[in-house]
């Protein structure tokens, strides 16, 4: 509560930044006054799924007479202003039958549209329904992947993973084999703003990065923005991954779930009060530990227990007070735990001993959010949110023993406990103001109270806490305000102009950043356009990471007096075209420059918990440029995409690689992804993905030579390992084919699905890591590549009712 009060006080502090606020709001009013108020009427409302009452995000609303387009926002709200008269509006959305609304509009009107889901749309889009296609909007580098498509993909060990699907998009690269980390246009994994219902998720992975925390059954929408960021987003340099949870069925009770090789999950949703209040509850847990426990206990006479599991739980309640007010409460909690316990009781040489040893590793997120949607009038929509997010990591070891000899008792106890994490309280207000069909204005403000725990080690012997090492907890305040307008200039040109202003208060420092954002689209004809964008970004937090695996040991740290914020600018230019049959293709070029990046110094190790993190890092810069091509088919029996990226990403640090540019670890010259999903019939769905990526860059010594220093002492064997440069060696190219087939059958109680997937179908030996090894027979040293997953079949059983 105290923290919340601090947040409120700090929020007030934000508003003292009158100068910047004035600029932003002046922009809003200038834009607003350009609007003509002559005899206009407004059509507004929300768009929902007729079956379950879920609001639909990004529905296209096309005025056939005026030939203009509007779109629903993240809460399904739309507003469209036009002259009085006859209207013929078409509401269309992928996976739903289009809805045509004809009337004579003489006054402002509100309608709630309910679209009917269509399992298979016809191949050809209904003639004359000009949806807002790829070429229409100003947004660049943004991809919305339908959940249906995500669920159709082959899955690693039977678990569909949202982040792994995003890795298949051009400009997005995976880290190492199997991991869920995202490297977007040369950025690091910390530069992705991953939002779950608007709340940042700091560590989005389970099982050391092999699975993401997002349970696909609980999700409604996934959007990735990798460039041309609108002003409403800020705080990260490289991407925004905006994930929205389902709201819960408003009409009737439903459930779905699956039982897989490593995990099972169950999602329940339904109305609490029909058409007023709904809930969603979704849980997932792995059970390898439960399966293995009897065997381990049996092997150790019941004295040992070793295991690992993860679980997550999503919950959401939403309540409609009236047409203008709606409240959402959402929760996510998830943990990973690895543990080893052993105990011993016995008598040795007359000493009676009882001992217990325990080792544990755990990490997880807790996320909660309360959001209130309020429609002030048919042109002004608002969302207010209060959120909490907490990522915590703990590593501990505990030994306890009691010895009794000749009646004398000796007790011993030792415990080492290492903790790190980040905790945020945030308040946020966002407004959508749609004065006319030529303007869509968004503005808002945000404040976050951060608490960083950058690695604190506590050791306890008997009852004395005798030492604490590492960084100390630190608090900081982050705030931002923004305004942007989507402006239609004539028939062909559309602009998105915006300003994002943010600041960060830490250790007496006050970092400020004004970030202009510009994006534009020029329609060449009805099916094609060119787009350009320029965006500057600032990020006040850093992730200290060694291997880039997305390990839970990665440390979130704030900008400090010594280590400033990260900053970037990115320019992109692209061509977009829609083709018949639901095909879209695009080509985008980009250049991104980054400053204030951190990297571990030469020789630094993150296992050194005693040294302050600031002493272990170098600050430098990076650049990335490339060309991305994308062909996608979203509708019909056969859907999928082909993406290709040609890019280069480099880093430069004064004291690393002798201040020369060097390739980023995940610099991939070529990156190809091909996904295909085909509905052979209502009962059989086939899917496949093929990926190819140039090898990761790693540092490997290629030669050794005699060192000088020891010659003084008469020793000639001192060895110097010669690294040609940082990340001088390329691993083998990565490629892999995954296949999947689903057998669907309608049952009396609902629907069941058997899914069989094969990961790495042609058994490619892809690199996981490289190391030098010596043959024990010949003594010959060699460089060995270790592969994690050769061919890996899996299956799962899914059900829906």
């Amino acid at each position, binding site marked *: 509560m105290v923290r919340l009060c601090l947040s409120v006080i700090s929020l007030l502090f934000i508003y003292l930044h009158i100068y910047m606020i004035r600029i932003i709001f002046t922009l809003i009013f200038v834009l607003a006054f350009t609007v003509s108020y002559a005899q206009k009427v407004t059509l507004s409302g929300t768009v929902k799924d007729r079956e379950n009452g879920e609001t639909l995000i990004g529905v296209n609303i096309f005025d056939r007479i005026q030939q203009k387009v509007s779109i629903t926002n993240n809460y399904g709200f739309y507003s469209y202003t036009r002259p009085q008269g006859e209207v013929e509006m078409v509401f269309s959305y992928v996976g739903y039958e289009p809805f045509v609304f004809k009337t004579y509009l003489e006054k402002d009107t509100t309608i709630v549209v309910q679209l009917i889901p269509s399992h298979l749309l016809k191949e050809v889009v209904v003639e004359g329904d000009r949806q807002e296609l790829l070429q229409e909007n100003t947004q660049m580098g943004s991809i919305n992947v339908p959940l249906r498509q995500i669920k159709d993909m082959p899955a690693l060990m039977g678990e569909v993973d949202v982040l792994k699907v995003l890795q298949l998009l051009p400009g997005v690269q995976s880290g190492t084999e199997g991991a869920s980390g995202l490297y977007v246009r040369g950025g690091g994994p910390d530069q992705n703003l991953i939002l779950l219902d608007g709340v940042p998720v700091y560590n989005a992975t389970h099982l050391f990065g092999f699975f993401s925390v997002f349970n696909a059954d609980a999700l409604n929408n996934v959007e990735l923005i990798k460039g041309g960021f609108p002003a409403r987003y800020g705080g990260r340099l490289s991407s925004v991954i905006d994930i929205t949870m389902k709201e819960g069925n408003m009409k009737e009770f439903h459930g779905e779930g699956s039982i897989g090789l490593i995990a099972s999950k169950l999602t329940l949703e339904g109305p609490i009060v029909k058409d007023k209040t709904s809930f969603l509850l979704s849980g997932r847990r792995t059970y390898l530990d439960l399966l293995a426990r009897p065997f381990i206990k049996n092997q150790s006479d019941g004295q040992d227990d070793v295991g690992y599991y993860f679980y997550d739980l999503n919950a959401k309640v939403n309540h409609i007070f009236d047409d203008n007010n709606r409240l959402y409460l959402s929760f996510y909690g998830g943990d990973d735990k690895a543990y080893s316990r052993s105990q011993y009781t016995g008598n040795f040489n007359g000493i009676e001993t009882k001992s217990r040893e325990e080792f544990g590793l755990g990490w997880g997120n807790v996320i909660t959010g309360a959001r209130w949607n309020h429609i002030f009038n048919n042109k002004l929509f608002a969302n207010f949110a209060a959120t909490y997010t907490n990522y915590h990591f703990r590593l501990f070891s505990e030994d306890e023993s009691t010895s009794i000899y000749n009646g004398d008792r000796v007790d011993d106890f030792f415990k080492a406990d290492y903790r790190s994490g980040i905790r945020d309280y945030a308040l946020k207000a966002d407004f959508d103001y749609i004065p006319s069909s030529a303007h869509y204005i968004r503005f808002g403000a945000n404040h976050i109270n951060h608490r960083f725990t950058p690695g604190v080690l506590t050791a306890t012997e008997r009852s004395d806490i005798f030492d604490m090492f590492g960084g100390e907890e630190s608090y900081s305040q982050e705030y931002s305000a923004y305004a942007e307008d989507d402006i239609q200039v004539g028939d062909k040109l559309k602009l998105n102009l915006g300003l994002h202003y943010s600041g960060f208060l830490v250790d007496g420092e006050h970092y400020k950043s004004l970030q202009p954002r510009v994006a534009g689209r020029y329609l060449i004809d009805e099916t094609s356009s060119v787009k350009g964008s320029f965006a500057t970004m600032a990020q006040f937090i850093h992730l200290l990471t060694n291997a880039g695996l997305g390990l839970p040991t990665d440390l979130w740290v704030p900008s400090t007096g010594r280590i400033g914020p990260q900053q970037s600018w990115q320019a992109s230019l692209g061509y977009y075209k829609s083709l018949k049959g639901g095909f879209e293709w695009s080509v985008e070029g980009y250049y991104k420059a980054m400053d204030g990046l951190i990297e571990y110094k030469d020789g630094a190790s993150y296992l050194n918990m005693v040294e302050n993190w600031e002493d272990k890092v170098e600050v430098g810069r990076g650049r990335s440029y490339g060309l991305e091509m994308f062909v996608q088919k979203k509708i019909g029996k056969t859907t999928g995409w082909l993406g290709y990226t040609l890019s280069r990403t480099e880093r430069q640090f004064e004291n690393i690689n002798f201040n020369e540019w060097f390739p980023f670890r995940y610099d991939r010259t070529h990156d190809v992804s091909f996904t295909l999903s085909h509905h052979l019939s209502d009962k059989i769905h086939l899917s496949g993905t093929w990926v190819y990526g140039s090898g990761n860059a790693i540092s490997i010594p290629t030669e050794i030579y005699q060192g*000088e220093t020891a010659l003084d002492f008469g020793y000639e064997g001192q060895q110097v390992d010669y690294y040609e440069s940082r990340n001088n060696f390329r691993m083998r190219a990565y490629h892999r084919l995954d296949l999947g087939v689903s057998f669907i059958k309608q049952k009396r109680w609902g629907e069941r699905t058997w899914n069989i997937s094969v990961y790495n179908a042609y058994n490619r*030996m892809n690199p996981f890591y490289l190391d030098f090894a010596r043959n024990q027979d010949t003594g010959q040293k060699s460089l060995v590549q270790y592969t994690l997953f050769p061919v890996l079949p899996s299956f799962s059983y899914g059900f829906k009712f």
Partner: protein
Amino acid sequence: MQKSTSILMLLFLIGISACETFLVMELPPHEPKFVINTSLEVGKPIRVFVSKSRSVLQDNHFERVSDASVEIMVDGQISYPLYSEEVLNNGTKMLAYTTTEVEIEVGRTYEIIVSGEGMQTARGKTTVPTPVEIKSVDLRSAPRNNRYGYVDFSVIFDDSQGSDFYEITVLQRGTLETIDGIDPERFIINQLVNLEPRNSIYENDFRYRTGLLFDDGLFDGREAKMEFGGVLYADIDLEITVFLKVVTSDYFNYENSLNLQETNRGDPIAQPVQVINNIQGGFGIIKAAVTSSYTLPFNNSIE
């Protein structure tokens, strides 16, 4: 049903047995290069050690090169040949290239060129820095309870403008008499002292030499006062000599990077360390230094 269960069990077994396999990777073919190691110091003879690099897949038995053509060029004008001979280094005979025709002088630039049949010519150069005199040395004994005692050192000198690099070492000399049994024994003390800096910025865990190696980042162009401590013999008359060596930036960076790499060898988590190399067409280091000294008598006793 039994058949499908068997198939599923088979798939499961394939799945769990699929983890961790390995493949031997090829490295680019290795071509040996000359390795030149030398430290050119005013007042010391020239000794250039030449060897050949080896592939990282080979062992570290570095081959001494005795048939290379080695020359030293002074200020880019006059070249002198160097000859290979056995030299004694800390009691060990080692093969080095030497000459008596050239004396290392302050401010001069020396280039070492090594060539040989079938090998790429390797060369590297350095300029000998200007010496810096020690203005004063102050020693203060700390309380102790045995025959050794901790001593605080304070060394003052003037730093010149621009980036400079220094190494301080301390030598203690004296005679120690002990009574072991009936007969007294005399020991000659001639030892370098392990030094610990007072300012933590000069600490580095990976350095294994006894001296302090530091740059002038904190006192550039001003009077420098270096404070450090070391353990000296107590209650005997000692002759303490403080050596202030002005070294080149390559010397400084080489020592730091080499020692850091050595310390982290075998740690898979640590970031790789690149060791500085100032040899073109080969590997190694050509260091240069000039030393001034300050000697004073001292008895490590508490008043």
